[in-house]
């Protein structure tokens, strides 16, 4: 079982609240979403593992058991081409859950006309294997977010 931590501080709202159907309809996978606090913050690793993909706006960490978790910082933020994001780790690096990976400011993303909503997705998770630790409400970065059985 994997405990997936909240990568950012904010309010847990669930994937259905994400203003992008590809996440809201669960096409990317199971998980949840956090509406982040509108202040400069640091997105952290949700699990122990290796950073297999690190974009300024999104990253994937894979645990030693092969399970991958995607953290997406805002919606359509690929269009920002890294502006407003500062990468604090390196692709291929091994990290502990809770380690800072990207610094960003959700308020700036929002001011630019995009949603700063953060989907957190258990990639390739089978139906029924993901259970919320915090179904809704406030979380701090590094708090337990969901269990992946």
């Amino acid at each position, binding site marked *: 079982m994997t405990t997936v931590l909240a990568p950012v501080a904010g309010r847990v709202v669930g994937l259905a609240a994400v203003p*992008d159907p*590809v996440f809201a309809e669960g*096409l*990317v*996978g199971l998980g949840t979403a956090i509406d982040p606090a509108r202040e400069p913050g640091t997105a952290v690793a949700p699990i122990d593992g290796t950073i*297999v*993909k690190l974009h300024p706006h999104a990253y*994937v960490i*894979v645990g030693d058991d092969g399970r*991958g978790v*995607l953290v997406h910082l805002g919606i359509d933020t*690929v269009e920002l081409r890294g502006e407003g994001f500062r990468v604090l780790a390196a692709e291929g690096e091994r990290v502990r859950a809770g380690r800072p990976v990207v610094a960003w400011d959700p308020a700036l993303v929002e001011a630019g006309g995009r949603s700063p909503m953060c989907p957190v997705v258990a*990639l*390739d998770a089978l139906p029924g294997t993901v259970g919320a630790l915090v179904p809704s409400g406030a979380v701090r970065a590094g708090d337990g977010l969901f269990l992946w059985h």
Partner: protein
Amino acid sequence: MPERKVIVESQVGLHARPAATFVQTAAKAPIDVTVAKPGGSPVSAKSILSILALDVRHGEAIVIHAEGEGADRLLDELVAIVSAP
């Protein structure tokens, strides 16, 4: 050995919606499907993790390979997904 080489036309590459649609389509098929960059190691087309890690950008080529009944039809569907701008 049904195989197609195709250029990824989506502006976001094989990420986000095209990636999710691609994997969902491949996962529904009862046969093995792989994707590789030309000359690279093939990964499962049924795994969103593998596809995101492959990190295919707009304008890059991929080789999709499927083996078994309905392979050609499936490859046509997958090619249509990645060829859409």
